[in-house]
């Protein structure tokens, strides 16, 4: 695919012929919107690309903030039985196909969906909020889609922390926040890094959820890739775009390793 991304889009007959040379046209197209001219930037594609990356980072952060308390609760606060119950409750929705889950969320968030109906009936709002146009549905869907991939690495990491250390910190006068900051998070950093990488990569590469839940004028970069591959039948350009996405993911992994000062082996574990 890497090779394909550097080749021109040719009809099958011409492949391997004299025109089939390495070229940067597809990357050029991504930046300038045209294979020849360099006059204008391809604001649409770059915009979608950046939007995807930024949203994915946002979703990852959101996911971390949401999952950390749950993972901590399961690992250190809950009794073993209720922790197990919680795990089951978290897993069961994921028996359902991703597409169906997205549709379910769409039903919840639709203009006349469940949430709006409830809010209206309790008199909280007068007219339905357009969650989908505001991309709230999209963020929620993406966050929820990979929640398990965040919770389990976190849970495993926090679980392995000696509970006495939490008590020792408390006994020494540490506040809850500081105990987390100084003891739990440093201990769990490999789990945090691995959860964040997985969630980021999968969010940036998600297709079904954005297709179902994004507002009509929001595009996800994978949707563009999909279009190049399937609708426009330009496999090499699709490859080039995929490579771009992949590179960002790799950069993100390296960044996480840098931030959390963990080795690749620790993340995978």
């Amino acid at each position, binding site marked *: 695919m890497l090779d394909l991304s550097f080749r021109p889009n040719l009809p099958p007959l011409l492949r391997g012929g004299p025109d089939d040379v390495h070229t940067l046209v597809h990357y050029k197209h991504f930046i300038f919107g045209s294979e020849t001219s360099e006059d204008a930037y391809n604001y649409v594609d770059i915009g979608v690309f950046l939007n995807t990356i930024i949203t994915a980072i946002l979703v990852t952060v959101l996911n971390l903030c949401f999952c950390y308390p749950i993972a901590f609760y399961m690992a250190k606060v809950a009794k073993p039985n209720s922790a197990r119950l919680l795990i089951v409750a978290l897993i069961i929705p994921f028996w359902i196909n991703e597409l169906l889950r997205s549709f379910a969320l769409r039903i919840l968030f639709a203009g006349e969906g469940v949430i709006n109906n409830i809010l209206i009936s309790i008199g909280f709002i007068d007219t339905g909020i357009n969650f989908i146009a505001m991309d709230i549905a999209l963020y929620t869907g993406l966050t929820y889609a990979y929640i398990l991939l965040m919770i389990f690495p976190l849970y495993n990491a926090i679980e392995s922390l000696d509970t006495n250390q939490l008590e020792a910190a408390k006994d*020494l*006068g540490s506040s809850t926040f500081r105990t987390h900051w100084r003891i739990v998070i440093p201990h769990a950093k490999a789990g945090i890094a691995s959860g964040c990488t997985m969630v980021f990569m999968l969010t940036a590469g998600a297709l079904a959820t954005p297709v179902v839940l994004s507002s009509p004028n929001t595009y996800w970069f994978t949707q563009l890739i999909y279009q190049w591959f399937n609708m426009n039948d330009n496999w090499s350009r699709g490859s080039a775009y995929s490579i771009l996405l992949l590179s960002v993911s790799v950069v993100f992994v390296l960044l996480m390793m840098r931030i959390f000062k963990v080795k690749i082996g620790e993340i995978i574990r």
Partner: protein
Amino acid sequence: MSADVELNNISVTFGSFYAAKNVSVKINQGEFFSFLGPSGCGKTTLLRAISGFLDPSEGKVLIAGQDMAGIGPNKRPTSLIFQNLALFPLMSVSENIVFSLEVRGVGKQERQKRADELLDLIALSGQGDKKVHELSGGQRQRVAIARALAIEPKVLLLDEPLSALDLKLRQKMRTELRAIQKRVGITFIYITHDQGEALTMSDRVAVMNEGELEQVGLCDDVYDFPHTPFVATFVGENNPFYGKVVSVEGDKIRVESHNNTFVAKSGKTGDGKNHSFSTGQEVIMFIRPESIFIKNENTQLDNTFKARVNTVEFEGNIKNIYLKINSKMNVRFSVPNAVDTSNLSNNKDIELTFSSQKAVVLPKGSLAVD
């Protein structure tokens, strides 16, 4: 600064199970006080109630006269040293030691100064930058002590902190702990199942069994005047002679056991009075192995009995000699290593003697099983 600790009728229940039951004791300011008891008797539970990690189901904890109800562990003037130390592995030794100052917002220089002081106290000067895993077991122990002392607690609580160390180091740390306590002058509440540890370090001990206090007192009092059969057998070694009271003359009790009649002193109750015995009552007379001697012209005390040598066991500083009375009752006595025992061949009948002052009679009750 130091404070006294009072446990006022403390009970701790888990469901219907009493991990601690009606425990009342007053621990004086600056005292080295130990709770001694077998595994699972509720020592840690009691310590957690004092440190505030656990609310007693009944009763009150008072520190320096103040009721601690509703005051969390991070607000109490106590510091706890955990059974497994619970040092922070990702921090350096110094960071560990002054963590309590860090969380109180003490500045970096001030913290460094205090860390150096405490490193001096525990004889680890210059090793503050090491990671915890680079230290030996005994050094870690001392770091845990320093960390607990950094905020200058009024009461230091120690939960079997020496149990993970080997024998030699344990003995060394006993002396060291005691010395540190003398130096800082605060109240130490120490928990152990090792009676040697409790007796060597403490001013007073409380012997616990199944969540209840059996006896509280000075170390030698607990050893010499056990109040219950449990204490008599848990603290040190003891020979229980089951028998019946023949006569009572003041605190001198005559007991018949295994066709011998012995004279012994009456055991005491919690309030310092003698137990009252009646003729015919079933009792246990306790005599310690080191208080029994082989009878000869020079050594003749007011009790004598005959027994047959079963085995002689070498234990280093002492030798244990196992005897049988009437080929049923097992008795053990010990002599210093220097005593010649070559004439004590197996199955030899010998005559033994012990003083009535060293034998204690107690009402029948359960022993410490070992």
